[in-house]
């Protein structure tokens, strides 16, 4: 059910020209800015990090807006009621959507890597290609699970996109997707430590530059699994609230 649901939702998302354009263009613009920043900072060796980091930002944006926006979209399409009517735990109904948004977020990663290679000649010299091949999907899976927790808060709010907008940049900044968390103010460290995005980004970066990938990936998946459990509990509560408050449909 999860696999079929994820693939069909990914197929549905992938056929939206607007969403695909945004998913491909925004990360490329961000990657361009990062490359020029790193170049002017005399850190040309970090250009691959810029490309990968911008790709991760794209995955995060896709999960964030996907988890909130997709559920809002389900409402607009009138499909939210239909999927919530399924005799399944609500978490199992929504998880394929959040996994699909993470999966389509990988388009951003592919776009930034291709853009870096073709336009700036950035060589894809991963320190550990095998670890990268595991870390990137692992990070995507983790973010998809994290998305369920976001989704459970968004499903009750009719204007969830306002919340999503305020969360996009702070999270990728605090998670160290582009710049390491060590250069951020110390008060951000505890926040960064509990976010799966931080550990996912670290795992991917370590696969690119070298470092202990597996512990970071393990922590990312462990926190994400925690978010999944929390999201599942929350989703059941939220579904009942939504039935009481009549927020599953538009009217």
């Amino acid at each position: 059910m999860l696999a079929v649901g994820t693939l069909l939702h990914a197929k549905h998302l992938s056929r939206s020209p607007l969403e695909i354009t945004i998913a491909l263009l925004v990360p490329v613009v961000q990657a361009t800015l990062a490359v020029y920043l790193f170049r002017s900072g005399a850190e040309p060796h970090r250009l691959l990090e810029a490309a990968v980091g911008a790709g991760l930002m794209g995955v995060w944006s896709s999960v964030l807006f996907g988890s909130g926006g997709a559920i809002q979209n389900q409402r607009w399409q009138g499909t939210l009621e239909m999927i919530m009517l399924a005799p399944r735990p609500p978490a199992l109904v929504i998880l394929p959507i959040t996994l699909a948004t993470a999966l389509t977020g990988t388009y951003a990663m592919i776009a930034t890597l291709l853009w870096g290679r073709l336009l700036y000649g950035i060589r894809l010299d991963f320190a550990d290609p095998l670890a990268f091949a595991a870390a990137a999907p692992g990070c995507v899976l983790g973010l998809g699970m994290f998305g369920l927790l976001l989704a459970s808060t968004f499903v009750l709010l009719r204007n969830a996109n306002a919340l999503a907008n305020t969360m996009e940049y702070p999270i990728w900044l605090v998670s160290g997707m582009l710049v390491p968390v060590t250069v951020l103010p110390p008060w951000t460290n505890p926040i960064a430590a509990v976010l799966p995005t931080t550990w996912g980004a670290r795992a991917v970066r370590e696969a690119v530059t070298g470092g202990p990938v597996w512990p970071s990936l393990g922590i990312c998946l462990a926190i994400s699994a925690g978010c999944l459990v929390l999201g599942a509990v929350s989703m059941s509560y939220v579904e009942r609230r939504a039935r009481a408050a009549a927020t599953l449909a538009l009217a």
Partner: protein
Amino acid sequence: MTEWAIEADGLRRTYRSRTGWLRPRRQEVEAVRGVSFTVRRGELFGLLGPNGAGKTTTIKLLNTLLIPTAGTARVCGHDVVRQTREVRRHIGYVFGGDRGLYDRLSALDNLRYFAELYGVPPRGQRARISALLELVGLDGRERERVEGYSRGMRQRLHIARGLLHEPDVLFLDEPSIGVDPVAARELRRTVAGLAETGTTVLLTTHYMAEADELCDRIAVIAGGRIRALGTPAELKHHADGRRVLEVEAYGVPDARLAEIQDLPGVREVSVETVGAAQMLTVQSDAGTDMQSHVLGVLNGIRLGRVTARQPTLEDAYVSIVNAHRPEKVAA
């Protein structure tokens, strides 16, 4: 196993909304105000009522999408609040309109997804989907994206989706809305066929002919309450002792309508706009010939066809609904 497929007892539902941030205003709308009825297994039960009467809210209370503010309901013996998942295993839900499908996916993908979601065993999915596509006449078009489908085709896909898991109880919420007459006839045939195979159907509709043709029993709901319940033949008795005059007219002002309403012997006056014309339906006491009086009031107004006839289920419905409205001229 209980003989009832649906049992509703004193269902009530209040919608609460809040607008504004600085000075929030709270509003409460009582959509359903104590609805009670039962539907036998295999029965085709109609819920008729004007817009805003509480039909859709009642259906959503029964199919677990809403939690009642008060009252209880059971579907196939399961409580809709406490045994949500059991209820969902037994029901299908189809609503009218364009929404509710994944437009950028094909009909086949839509059905595959919902088959997984509704727990259709993987081994039987292909055969079930093929059978349903054939039933609703979409075989051969199943690989096309839904966004290219006509409204009628979407509606048929909705029905196929609602039947995927072979539900014991099917809720049809205005399934023929916006569907052309030919497609609507096909739809009625499909619904009648379902009832013949033992599926319990709860149907809401605006179309009296549809309800008359299909339903074993009908409940008329208005203002959140059931105003009448019975077989179509029983409901028609609400218009006994009346006769009906239909007048096609153009540009009848409200004052003239009020004048007709005030004529001695007139029970109800309703107006339906059909293109540029207005169709006036005047119900009066059977012993009174109103034609000359009504035409007298309409003197000077361009008129079309004028017909006198016996009351139908629709007239009975109008009389039931209007009896609970403050004003008597229904548009």
